[in-house]
Every structure is written in C-alpha cells, then in structure tokens.
C-alpha cells in the first residue's frame, strides 16, 4: 500500500502535502510500538534467557551455576541429539510429502462449486477443531492392541501394535499429524485457489485446455506463493510438534519418536537438566530460522511482484 502511495505522481505536488505524508509515516512508525513491545517481551527476552541458560548448570529448582561450554560439548557429543535431529527431519520431510499433495487437491476441490461440496468441506475441517491432546488420546484408545477399534470390530489386519513397534509408531505419528493438519493447509489452498481470476480458466478453455492441463498450467503456477506459505508453516511447524507426540507415544517406544522438541522437554523437565535442554532450544531456533529464510529465498527475490501482470 505505502509503496503505491509514495510512487504515485499525485503525492509529489506541493511541499505541504509531502510534509503531511512524512507526519503520517512517523505516526505509522509509532503504531508498531505495541507489536515491538510484545515481540521483545515474549520472543527476544526469553530467547536471550535460553541462550544464557545454555551455558549454565540448573536443575530447575536450586540455584543457577556457570557451566561454560560443558552443556554444549555434552549435548553435541550425545548420540541422542543426532537421533532426535534425524527423526525431526524425517517427520518434517514425510509430513510435507504426505500433506502437500492431499491438501492441495482438497483445497482445489473445496474451492470449486460441485454438489455437496460445502457438506464435504465441513467434514474435512473437523479435525482442525480438536486439540492435539484430545486427538492423541482418541487415537491411542482406538489403536490399543487389546481393547482398540480393530479388536472391537474384528479386523485382524488393523490389530497391529501400532504404538509399540518403532517403525509403526513413527509412521503412525506422521499419519496422525497429517490427519490433524491437512484441514488447515486445505483452507490455505482453498483461499489461494479462489484468488485466481476466472478469466485465466476461460481463456484456457477457449484454447482447448482440459481440466488436468488447466491444473498444471494455471492453478499450480498461480498457487506458487500459497505453496511457499503452506510449506513454511509445515516445515517450521514440524520443528515444534510436541503435544501430539508427547501424549501419543511419549517419545517411545525406546527413542523411536523422540523428536527434538520432545527431547528438549524430557531433558529439561523430566531429567532436570535445564542447561542441556536450553542448548537444544537454541539449536531448534537456529534450524527454524535457517529453514524459514531458505524457504523465503525459494520464493525468489521478486516475490512482492505481481503474478497477475497483463490482466
């Protein structure tokens, strides 16, 4: 908005008017103060606190002592960290691969105007209304190997020990995460698809392009930034998956679902090792920032440019 105002030829007419815009700009700067205040109090200060704690000895109860580099060396030498890192990236990539195509297709479908679309859309969005803890408890009960759904309905092929075998538990975690978050990303894609001008499709139809061609040559390119937004949320969000996995598996069996965020919690609040837990928190922040920046770069430098030029 401000960009178009300052470059438009109407503003640079007289001195008085430009002074007024200067004043308005100053007033606008003041408006960021509350946001900056909250950012400082709830993001910067805790971040600095965690960074300092990563060099300290603290059990969460007693007094805080100086540890120097001990925590960092101990955590970086711990194979548990690399296991957690590997699992975090595995869940991140698998979640992206599973969720993106499903939510993209569902988004395109719910943005259309087919019969029963509204009713089906409501069904798709239901998981979005449930809290992660509730979802985890429900799935845990359904998948119980002795009293669960499979036993109740007599479906032996479903009666696996879903949460008790390491690779099954990991796969299940990815599935439940997808079940919970696909609706959210569907919503994003639905909004994105509705922004695409109808005239593009009309032109394509005149040129003889079918539904599939339209999808690959109009919908998908037009959704470029929506895909980047959704992917950023998925990738950065997967770094903080905690509540669902904590309730569902607690990191187990063994360490097979102990992702970085959970590892941090267990070290800090179960084992009373706040220093090493802070080290992991710092690592999480660095990875999260790096990934967010990388994804922004993927969007290209001209990302503020219009995709609708010539329309």
């Amino acid at each position: 908005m401000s960009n178009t105002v300052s470059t438009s030829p109407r503003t640079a007419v007289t001195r008085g008017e430009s002074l007024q815009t200067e004043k308005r700009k100053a007033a606008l700067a003041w408006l960021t103060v509350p946001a900056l205040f909250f950012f400082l109090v709830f993001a910067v200060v805790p971040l600095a606190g965690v960074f300092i704690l990563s060099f300290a000895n603290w059990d969460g109860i007693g007094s805080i002592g100086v540890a120097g580099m001990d925590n960092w060396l101990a955590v970086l030498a711990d194979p548990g960290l690399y296991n957690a890192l590997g699992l975090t990236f595995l869940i991140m990539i698998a979640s992206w691969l599973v969720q993106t195509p499903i939510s993209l297709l569902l988004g395109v479908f719910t943005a259309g105007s087919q019969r029963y679309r509204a009713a089906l859309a409501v069904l798709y969005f239901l998981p979005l209304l449930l809290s992660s803890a509730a979802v985890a408890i429900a799935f845990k009960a359904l998948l119980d190997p002795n009293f669960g759904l499979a036993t109740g309905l007599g479906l032996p092929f479903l009666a696996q020990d879903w949460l008790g075998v390491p690779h099954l538990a990991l796969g299940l975690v990815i599935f439940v995460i997808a079940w919970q978050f696909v609706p959210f990303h569907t919503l994003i894609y639905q909004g994105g698809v509705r922004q695409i001008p109808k005239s593009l499709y009309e032109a394509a139809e005149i040129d003889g392009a079918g539904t599939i061609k339209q999808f690959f040559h109009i919908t998908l390119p037009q959704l470029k930034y929506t895909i980047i937004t959704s992917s950023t949320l998925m990738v950065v969000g997967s770094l903080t998956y905690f509540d669902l996995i904590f309730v569902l598996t607690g990191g187990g069996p063994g360490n097979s679902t102990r992702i970085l965020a959970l590892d941090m919690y267990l070290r800090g609040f179960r084992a009373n090792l706040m220093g090493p837990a802070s080290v992991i928190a710092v690592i999480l922040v660095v990875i999260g920032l790096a990934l967010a920046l990388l994804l922004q770069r993927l969007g290209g430098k001209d990302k503020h440019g219009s995709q609708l030029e010539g329309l």
Partner: protein
Amino acid sequence: MKQPQTSRRSFLALAALTPFAVAATSACGTSGPGTASGGGGASMWYLSGEPNQTTMQKAVDTFNSANPDNKIAVTYFQNDAYKTKIKTAIGAGQAPTIIYGWGGGTLKTYAEANQVEDLTSWFEENKDLKEKFFPSSFGAATVDGKIYALPNQYVAPIVLFYNKELFEKAGAQPPKTWDDVMSLVKTFNDMGVAPFSLGGQSRWTSMMWLEYLLDRIGGHEVFNAIFEGKPDAWLDPAVIETGTKIQELVSAEGFIKGFSSIAADSNADQALLFTGKAAMMLHGSWTYGAMKKGGQNFVQSGKLGFVHFPTVAGGKGDPKNGVGNPAQYMSISSKATDQEKESAKKFFKDGILTETVIDTYIASGSVPIVNGIEDKLDTSEDKDFLNFVYDLAKNAPNFQQSWDQALSPTAAEALLNNIDQLFLKSITPQQFAENMNATLGK
C-alpha cells in the same frame, strides 16, 4: 479512506488496553496455585484417581469443618502429569504449601535447594506422631539425617498378582522360582492367553521387574552401591544377568502383545488381568483397591490371587526382600507463609491418618503405615490380601524403595529410558549397564 482510520483507532485502543488485560490475568496466575483460598489455610496438590481421591477429600472436608481457620484447599492431578508439574512449580516459586511426593532422590533435590521445611525438630516435639508410623517409613523421608517429610498413606510393595480362574483351567500353580515363570509362559502361550500383563509405555511398570530380579539375583547390596554412587556399581554382573533374564522373558513372549504401547495411567494393564486376557501381572499393591473398584467383581468373587516375587536359582538375595513404596510423603514448602505452614502442620497432626482415614484405607485394600492395626486388618473383608501385604512389608529384611524415586531425577529419567530400550531389545544388557553406569553421581 475512512474505513482504515476507524480500524486504526480501534487497534490503538486495543493496543493500549492489552497490557492491562495481560497484567490482570497474570496477577490472577501468580495468586492461583501458590496460596490457598481464604485466611490462613494451606494449599495442597494430590493425585487424582480412586479410591484415594475420595479418601483424601473426605479427610480434608472433616479437617476443614473442624478447623475453619486452617482450611486446606486440594487440587488433584494425574500421576505422571503431577510429577512434572510439581517440579516446575517448585522451581518457579509457585509450589503449594503441602508438597506430595514419594521421598527419596526427588525429595533430596528439594531439600538441597532449601525448598522444603526441615521437620526434624517438629517430630521431636510430636513424639507421639513419630511413633505412630512404621519406623521403616522414615528412611525415604530422611536426607543427611534430617527428616523433610511426613510419611503417610500406606505401604505399597510390588506383588505378583494372578488370575485364579486361568490357573485352574491350566492346572497350574503360581510360580515359586524363575524356572516356574518360564514354564508358565509356555503353558499360557499354548492356551492362547498372555502370560503377563504389562503397561510398558509407563516405563516404571517395566522397572518393577528389574527391581525384584536384581534383588533376587544379586541381593539388595547391588542397588545400594548404585544408590550410593559407588564407581562402576551398575557394571555388577548381577545387573547384566538381570537384563539377560528380562530379554529372555520378552523373547519367549512372556508379556502381552503390544505391552510397550499400554500405559498404566489408563489401568489397561489391570483390565487385561481381570478380563482374563493375561494370567499374571507384577504390580503395586495399590492396584488391588483399583481392581476391586473397577474389576467387575473379579476381586470380590475371589478370582484374584497374589504371591511374593519368585526366587532365582543361585541368587544371593533374601527371598523375603521386598520392593515398592515404603509410604507416600508430604513436605511443607519453605516458601509458604508462617500461617500456611502452621495450618499444614496442624493438618499433618490432626487431619491425616485419623481413625476414619485408616479405616477407609483398610476398606479399600491397603495397609496404612501405622502401628497396631493387626486387629483391624483381621476383621476386614480383604484380610487375606491385607495380611499378606502387612507380613511382606514387616518381615522383609530389606525393603527397597522404587528406583525411580530413590535416584536423582536425572538418573531416574535415564534409567526409565534405558529400561524401555532394554525391554524392546534395542540395547543389550551390557549396553544397558554401561549407559546407566555413565549416570552414576548425576
């Protein structure tokens, strides 16, 4: 252009108001858990779950109506969630006046951080109270010769429960030795019944197996050395043998299918025993009361059997040794006001383990830690079980406190994590011993 301006103004108003709203809610937050409602009362956190929740609520209600100036306000939490919450609350200076716990290593970290009151002199002043309890119950309440907690509730040894109906069907006898255990595993697997129920996701449930096995194989001295942090205490050959025996049992399908995804918090492990899906279960004696209440007449109709943990051929441990919780404990937060501390002490003296509470515990199938209850136990409808538990606790030459409570929280978390992997066979007994050895002194 009018539209954005009004929204800007309302945004400003919102921005101006928000800090006050935040301040108001955070003010509520700080006064929430730390202080009790009204006057000079004390706050207390306790575990949810029956039958103990009702027993405690009744005790508190009785105390509160007799002592309107020293009211106790109780909040209930689930077991596993409570253990984390109380630590965080104490660290943040938000602890309730009365801190409930299991003594041992966790209590030691509180005492060392000066977060709990030293009750030694108070017990000196109240000798009657001190002599009321089993002497063995004070061990886990004592740190460096000072008493930091009031023992209360009941003694809870780990007991081997079994389903009598299934044993009759199989024509089998409850196990006396480890060899019996292994042959019963085969018997019940052939019958299509799981030999042992286990809520393995909770991890401390699997730990109970190691506690008894290590004691039977190597004697109580092995864990004592670990507890005292002696060098290489975990590398004792008895630890390796314990791990090997456990993995043999897992390999022989001794535990119910899917045990590592069953959590004890939902009582699914008990349900497996009383619904006849599993023949045996090693569990705390507190599950007797829970099974009596939730087990569809399983206990009342005499189908629940119980024996002491079997012996191991060539083992050094006394077969009478017990493991479990010698008692539960309550400490007073040193951050509480003097008035709150007074109320808490009054509650300790007059409100906990009153005659009514003792009777309620006995009626729910537990043995309270007070002396001279033999007559009461004998007249109870659960006298077989109560006398069994009472004798087990009384006659045990060594009663080992549960490991995860005895050790420091740091070592305990590592222990539970390694036990989980041992039961999954993702580490060898040797690796288990080495991993744990690295936690000595932490």
